[in-house]
């Protein structure tokens, strides 16, 4: 069996295990075993991938495999990874693993919760390993629908509204995607659904003109492209902790990944034609998201808008179409995924103690729960791009790469987008100052306790990953930039 298919097989077995679990301990055992195996597998995959590359394997995708599924429409279950997918798989497995611990004490209906949670992760893993447009799209939708129940049943606040809004907007995006996929399939001569094979063909210009914006918008909705980002703040604010982590950390990355892998790779001329328009939209996302975060008072809303800004940066960097900026975009996905997951985990932990996320009601948490407070500071500093953490590496690469695009229009956009760095510092430091320092006036809050062992474990894992990426970025950087090459060269040639 192909090593990549195991990424789909493990969640399936986990769901089976959850189905027959009888009590909380069994559920936890299944979840911990499964997510640990996923994490181990993705680390092993990364190692195997690097050693194969070092040994001289120069195919675009490694570990490829293809099984014919629906022959009349050339649909195959075909898998394969390049450096981009390897790091995304690594990210996903880290988030799924830590998310399991972050929802350790979740009540009620624990079993159902984890069933949907595992289905969501199955969709994510399936998406990143797929090489076939149809299969990829299928996994994409598999990842979307559990969100409805996860937010609707286990969420907080305006959960029913948020769940419905999120589901409908994302499904709206996938309606665009479906028509785009059909357009690409028939545009490329209706011979194959395989992305690599379609990339070798030339899709007629008039088809690219129509379907590039369709596909880019479809994925862009998930990547929080302005003005289709409005699902994100409500959705993230209402979702339970681990779901916010997984959603902001991984699911939003599906958008950027899809834009790059399908829209830009397969329709490079369309990307040249429409690139400027989308660049304006992403620049707005970057700046507008950051500015919105400054005025929010709900911790989760602050982070959700911050995610809009950072995910906007991913699309922004991709549209700059230089090798360095695209590498930066992937690094940004990785780094933002880890940081935002850590933020949402911390906010969830604080919320379940104080029962409020309003920054006006929180004071002096540093003395009450020092571990969580320090964690929050680390996440904040990483988020505003302090050297030594992943955020710095990613944003540095993004802006350096973007500035390499010598076109005046692109340079102006870059300069506008860089302002978000300053704004990020404003909203992060404002929150840190308000809720962590000062004297706590609320009697109730003084009685609260610090993190439990599983919470500490979650945070420590994420800190290690963030600092690891920040201190030793080279191996990841090499992994990504070599794989970005074929896609960028496609864009440059045509």
């Amino acid at each position, binding site marked *: 069996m192909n090593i990549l298919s195991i990424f789909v097989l493990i969640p399936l077995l986990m769901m089976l295990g959850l189905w027959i679990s009888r009590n909380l301990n069994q559920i936890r055992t299944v979840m911990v075993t499964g997510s640990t195996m996923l994490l181990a597998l993705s680390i092993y995959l990364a190692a195997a991938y690097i050693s194969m590359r070092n040994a001289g394997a120069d195919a675009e995708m490694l570990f490829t495999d293809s099984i014919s599924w629906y022959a009349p429409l050339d649909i195959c279950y075909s898998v394969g990874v390049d450096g981009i997918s390897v790091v995304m798989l690594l990210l996903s497995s880290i988030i799924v693993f830590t998310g399991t611990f972050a929802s350790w004490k979740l009540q009620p209906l624990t079993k159902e919760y984890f069933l949907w949670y595992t289905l969501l992760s199955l969709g994510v893993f399936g998406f990143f390993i797929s090489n076939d447009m149809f299969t990829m799209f299928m996994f994409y939708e598999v990842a979307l629908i559990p969100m409805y*129940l996860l937010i609707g049943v286990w969420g907080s606040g305006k959960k029913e509204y948020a769940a419905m809004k999120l*589901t*409908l907007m994302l499904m709206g995006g996938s309606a665009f995607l479906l*028509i785009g996929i059909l357009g690409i399939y028939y545009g490329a001569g209706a011979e194959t659904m395989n992305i690599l094979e379609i990339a070798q063909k030339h899709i007629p210009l008039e088809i690219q003109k129509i379907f590039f914006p369709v596909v880019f918008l479809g994925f862009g909705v998930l990547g929080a492209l302005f003005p289709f980002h409005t699902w994100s703040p409500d959705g993230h604010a209402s979702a339970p902790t681990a779901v916010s982590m997984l959603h902001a950390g991984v699911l939003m990355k599906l958008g950027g990944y899809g834009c790059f892998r399908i829209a830009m790779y397969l329709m490079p001329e369309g990307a040249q034609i429409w690139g400027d328009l989308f660049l304006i939209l992403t620049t707005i996302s970057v700046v507008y998201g950051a500015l919105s975060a400054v005025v929010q008072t709900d911790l989760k809303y602050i982070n959700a808008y911050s995610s809009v800004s950072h995910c906007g940066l991913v699309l922004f960097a991709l549209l700059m179409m230089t090798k360095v900026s695209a590498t930066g975009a992937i690094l940004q996905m990785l780094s933002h995924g880890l940081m935002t997951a850590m933020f949402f985990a911390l906010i969830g932990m604080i919320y379940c103690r104080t029962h409020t996320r309003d920054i006006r009601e929180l004071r002096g948490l540093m003395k009450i729960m020092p571990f969580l407070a320090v964690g929050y500071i680390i996440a904040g500093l990483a988020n505003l791009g302090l050297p030594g953490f992943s955020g710095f590496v990613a944003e540095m690469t993004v802006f350096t790469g973007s500035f390499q695009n010598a076109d005046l229009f692109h340079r102006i956009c870059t300069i506008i987008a860089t302002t978000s760095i300053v704004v990020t510092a404003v909203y992060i430091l404002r929150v840190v100052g308000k809720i962590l320092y000062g004297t706590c006036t609320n009697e109730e809050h003084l009685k609260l306790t610090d993190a439990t062992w599983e919470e500490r474990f979650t945070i420590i894992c994420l800190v290690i990953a963030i600092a690891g990426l920040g201190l030793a970025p080279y191996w990841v950087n090499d992994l990504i930039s070599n794989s970005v090459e074929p896609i960028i060269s496609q864009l440059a040639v045509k």
Partner: protein
Amino acid sequence: MLIAIQAEITLTAALVLMLVADLIFKEPNHKYLQASAVILMLIHTALNIVPTDTEAFGGMYHSSMISSVMKTILSTGTLLVFMQAGQWLEREDTRHKAGEFYIITLSTLLGMYFMMSAGSFILFYVGLELASIPMACLVTMDKKRHESAEAGAKFILNSMFSSGLMLYGMSLIYGTCGTTYFEDITAALTGTPLQIMATVFFFAGLGFKLSLVPFHMWTPDTYQGAPAPVSGYLSVISKGAAAFTLMSIILKIFGNMTAQWNLLLSIVIVATITVANLFAIKQTNLKRFMAYSSISQAGYIMLAVLGGGAMGMSSLVYYITVYIAANLAIFAVIGTVEQYSGRVDRDAYNGLYKTNPKLALVMTLALFSLAGIPPFAGFFSKFFVFASAFREGHWIVVFIALINTIISLYYYLLIVKAMYITPNDSPVSTFRSPAFTRACLLVCLAGIILLGLCSGVYQLFTDLA
């Protein structure tokens, strides 16, 4: 010649045996009626499972490979309806007519068989009437409820009206072509104004049966009034047969008039899907809601007709197969809940997951399948009808249909929300439905999950179409 119409003969035999069974199993042994109906249908389906291509009565009757597969699918669907009808026919006021229900249902099915394998307008019309008139009896089976009687009246009047329209269309075609045999009509149909008018009449007639907008007015009232298994039967079996017949007649005889057909179909599809979806949002009675949902599903089925060709045909048959599994599961749940709580409004489903988790789960998965969410079969069937219409360049219609799937997802999710999220102090109490119903739900569930993931079914349809 008799072997040629084997499917019809075994079905008639089943019908006659049911008549005998009705005489034997008087109260208190009436519960054996359901078992015998199920067994007879199983035998009938098993005997005809191998698809054949046969012709009889000098071209009057022609059953192609794909129509014989379609017959198997419909008889399996009818079997599922029989399995879920038992609990309704257990009631005090219905049990004395349990036998009649099975017999009448079988006779409508026989009508559909003839309709699907007609080689001439005459046999087609006879089959159509055989499928329609007894259906009115089925709809009024709950005659103590006045909605049921009203539903029956609406059904029969609309049915007669549409038959009249269709007959007029057919007579115009006969007038211009001089024959009623499909084989000879093909060459004679060239798209003269009179023939276009005939086509419109013919299409309007079938549009009534399929409940396409603007011929859909009877559907909500009829579905609401009819007993749940009958509504289920109407929504999938009757609709499936009509859709298949429309497709095969268009393929067979209207080859020269594709341009006219496509325009007509595109408008009707867009109207059907959009109008039905918008009306469905506001419905709180689940049967009425499912009526609007089934109207919009008919619109999606018509996309395959728009696609045309072998690919359209296989997508259509596949869509109907998947639709049967999902819709019958929903009607089984509706029927069961109605049986035990007497309610069909959406509020009755609030908190259903807490008291009847398995029923709620089946309902959820079936709704997801109808909405086209992977990995359930509805996703694949929708993809294939979209692909078949897209291939012929109708991508604006496909796009509108896709936008409509979002609306449909919204109203399907409203039910999911009721079952899982909305709090309820007095939900429907926990109950255990009869064995046959549970078996039916299990088969439907297997269909919803496996029909999509196993590509063999679609491959088979493609090979035969």
